[in-house]
């Protein structure tokens, strides 16, 4: 029999935003269920090490290690019901949620929901990017922090945003070799971000330390360059890099530089994961500088749907520090709206929180801007480059759909199968939309893909469970 659970507040995602929201709401007497895919709370940045690992030197490898550990300690001491290793595959207004995991299929009903679903990686494709050995910067971070593994013997680290240097330094610290660091931004772009980043001198210094460390290790550091091709037979053996112009368009007139490597860690920022808020009917808006489509939220984290809140990077890329604060705000708002808190207490408790959030966001916004690829980078997606790797759809096929008259993203999907695979467009959606926007005049005009259930592919065996023929509802057959 499939398990059914009830709760006051369901928090979807146990990263910094979700965990903080759960703690805040539980402090004020709400019954809270905190759900996550991972084995423990922490999300990507504050990810817990696998239970089979003993981390003797967590702090050395990951300076944020203690923040995650303390979050997990507070959760352990709280009344929050922590339900991990659960994948959410179904959500519906009202609120009904279904998960699968070690207990099989489970259904959850809640009065309120906080969505803290975080982000996924954006990789602007280039020829060869589907070869084994190519991983995202976020994936490289997980390998380093959680698995304490290196992506390869020699890794080229490329893309844009603070994760490029962070991953390169992570590899060096772990004893790995970095073949080159290739950043699409110029030193000037970084310099422009400095004043905003100065609100967090600790992080700014950490970033500057990264650059020093890369230089010290003698790693070639190429600013305003992009990887334009990944080469290799069965896996990566070499990448080609070219300078880019101020729109990040590769300079095809300048000779390419080759770097030998057996791994490429590449990423071009993060995209908010909004399938849950979409399926729950919240209104969304497009905000390029915050990563893409985001749910509209008020200053207290309320979405357009009653009792549905959103916090953290799924409301716009801002980083882990603001997510901790915004999550707490969402949890308090849920408690307020559920009459667990007096408005005066809410105002008092949130005023300092809002000030801190404001400061944290200044840094986060500067960092997010550095992660936003300029449109010229799409030139690395040559006609024969695969855009949708689940369904093997190339840019040429997508462009052919536009030529044939496709005028929104759902039409491109129907005609090319781009985005129809098991990742449901999480990998290709942003690129396909950016290509469409070039033709059709802007991301708003192109629209987003319709979010579909299941949010993650679900094993058929899990859904059908044990059953007898009589357990299948049927229309009563007529007897003649």
């Amino acid at each position, binding site marked *: 029999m499939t398990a059914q659970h009830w709760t006051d507040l369901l928090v979807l995602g146990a990263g910094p935003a979700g965990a903080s929201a759960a703690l805040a709401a539980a402090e004020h007497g709400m019954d809270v269920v905190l759900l996550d895919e991972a084995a423990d709370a922490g999300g990507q940045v504050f990810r817990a090490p696998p239970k089979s690992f003993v981390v003797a030197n967590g702090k050395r490898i990951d300076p944020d290690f203690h923040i995650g550990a303390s979050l997990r300690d507070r959760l352990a001491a709280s009344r929050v019901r922590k339900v991990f290793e659960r994948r959410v595959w*179904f959500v*519906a*207004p009202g609120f*009904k949620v*279904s998960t699968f995991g070690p207990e099989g299929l489970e*259904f959850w009903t809640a009065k309120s929901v906080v969505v803290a679903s975080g982000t996924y990686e954006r990789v602007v494709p280039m020829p060869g990017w589907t070869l084994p050995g190519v991983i995202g910067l976020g994936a490289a971070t997980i390998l380093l922090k959680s698995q304490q593994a290196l992506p390869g013997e020699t890794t080229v680290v490329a893309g844009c945003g603070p994760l490029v240097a962070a991953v390169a330094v992570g590899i060096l610290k772990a004893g790995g070799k970095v073949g080159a660091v290739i950043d699409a931004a110029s030193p000037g772009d970084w310099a422009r971000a400095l004043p905003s980043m100065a609100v967090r001198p600790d992080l700014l210094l950490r970033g500057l330390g990264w650059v020093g460390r890369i230089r010290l290790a003698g790693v070639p550091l190429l600013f305003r360059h992009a990887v334009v091709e990944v080469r290799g037979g069965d896996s990566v053996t070499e990448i080609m890099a070219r300078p880019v112009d101020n729109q990040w368009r590769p300079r095809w007139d300048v000779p390419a530089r080759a770097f030998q490597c057996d791994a490429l860690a590449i990423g071009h920022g993060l995209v908010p994961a909004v399938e849950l808020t979409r*399926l729950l*009917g919240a209104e969304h808006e497009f905000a390029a500088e915050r990563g893409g489509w985001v749910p509209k939220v008020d200053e207290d984290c309320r979405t357009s749907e009653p009792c549905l809140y959103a916090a953290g990077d799924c409301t716009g890329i801002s980083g882990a520090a603001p997510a901790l604060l915004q999550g707490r705000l969402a949890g308090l708002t849920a408690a307020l709206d559920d009459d667990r808190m007096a408005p005066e207490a809410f105002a008092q408790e949130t005023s300092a929180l809002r000030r801190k959030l404001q400061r944290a966001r200044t840094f986060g916004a500067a960092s997010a801007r550095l992660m936003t690829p300029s449109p010229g980078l799409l030139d690395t997606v040559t006609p024969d480059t695969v855009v949708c790797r689940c369904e093997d759809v190339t840019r040429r096929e997508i462009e052919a*759909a536009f030529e*044939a*008259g*496709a*005028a*929104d993203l*759902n*039409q491109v999907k*129907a*005609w090319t*199968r781009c985005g*129809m*695979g*098991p990742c*449901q467009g999480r990998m290709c959606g942003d690129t396909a939309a950016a290509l469409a926007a070039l033709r059709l005049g802007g991301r708003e005009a192109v629209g987003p893909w*319709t979010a*579909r*259930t*299941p949010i993650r*592919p*679900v*094993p*058929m*065996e899990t*859904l*059908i*469970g044990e*059953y007898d*023929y009589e*357990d*299948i*509802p*049927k*229309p*009563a*057959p*007529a*007897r*003649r």
Partner: protein
Amino acid sequence: MYDALVIGGGIMGCTTALHLARGGMRVAVIERRGLCMEASGVNAGTLSLQIKRKELMPYALKGWELWKTASDWLGDGVGFHQLGGLTLAFTDDEAELLENKMRERAEAGAPIEFVHRDRAREIEPGLSNHPVLASFCPLDGYAQSNEIGRAYRAALIGAGVQVFERSTVSSIEKIGANFAVTFGGNTKQARRLTLAGGAWLGRLGALLGVELPVEYRVNQVSVTERIRPILRTIIGVVSDPLSTKEGPALGTSLVGTLTLKQSSNGTVLIGGGWQGIGDLDRGGYQIRPEYLIGNLRQAHYAIPALADARVARTWCGVEGHVPDFMPLAGPIPGVENAFVVGCCRGGFTIGPYLGRILAQRILGQEPEMPLFDPGRFAPAPLVDSVGAGRP
């Protein structure tokens, strides 16, 4: 000024427009979204004669033939595959129902034969040992419904039809003998008008001042990831789509039946009309997980190897219907030169043929087969003549 405007760019509207243009008319299609983006393009693409009602079998055979020859008249094969299909009965009661239903449908012209379990498992090695009886039709197959919008768009434009997509019609007025249709900031006039808005036909009829008793169902469809070949036929289960003696008629039942097939790309499509939740005006559909599970159990009961697959996606399509679940195809009573086509159970298979015979009527020819009088529900026009006396 057009000779004909078609409102609704699904299979029936597009086919009507295509034949009108080929018959020499100046035609435009006005579509709320993109061509074939609702039921026409999101249904499971099943072309099965075994799930067609006997009254519609001659039309279904014609429609099937049209999909088979789509590259000739549509300019694109749209992935037509003829796999043969099995309809299964798992209990003795179901076997009796299967015999009754399929005998009727065979008499109506579908080449259906009965096969026992062992023969069925020769035809379909992936079959479980649960069926007690099966019927087989060698014509059953499928087409790639998601590709047809592209095919129709190219064909319409090639035939000189003007296509207005992302264009929601806000009013229909009669100006003299002409219809004036307004959408967005545009107004187009034509001597003839065809409403082909599928589930939205009731709303379109209201704009014209006529009552079309159209309701709708929200059909769930699921697809697995690509997997190794596990079945090679179209699988269905017996049900009585218009059961009246006992239990709810499927027309109102939330519980569907089964259509199951593996596409050439390795994905397995599972449908059958299990009901999700949808709202025509707000848009957006929700699946009902309990019915998804029921539908999947049905599929798995027939093809056990499905247990290894993962469900990649589910979605819904809205299918319009009228009280007798028969199509609408013909002149709208009381409004000269206005026509309607739609609301056909099994519309993916039959739709292109309904569009063709309606176009014959509009072009002043004798339709190859009888049309389906939209006036049979005797809806008096809301007003004496269109546009007159309305606010």
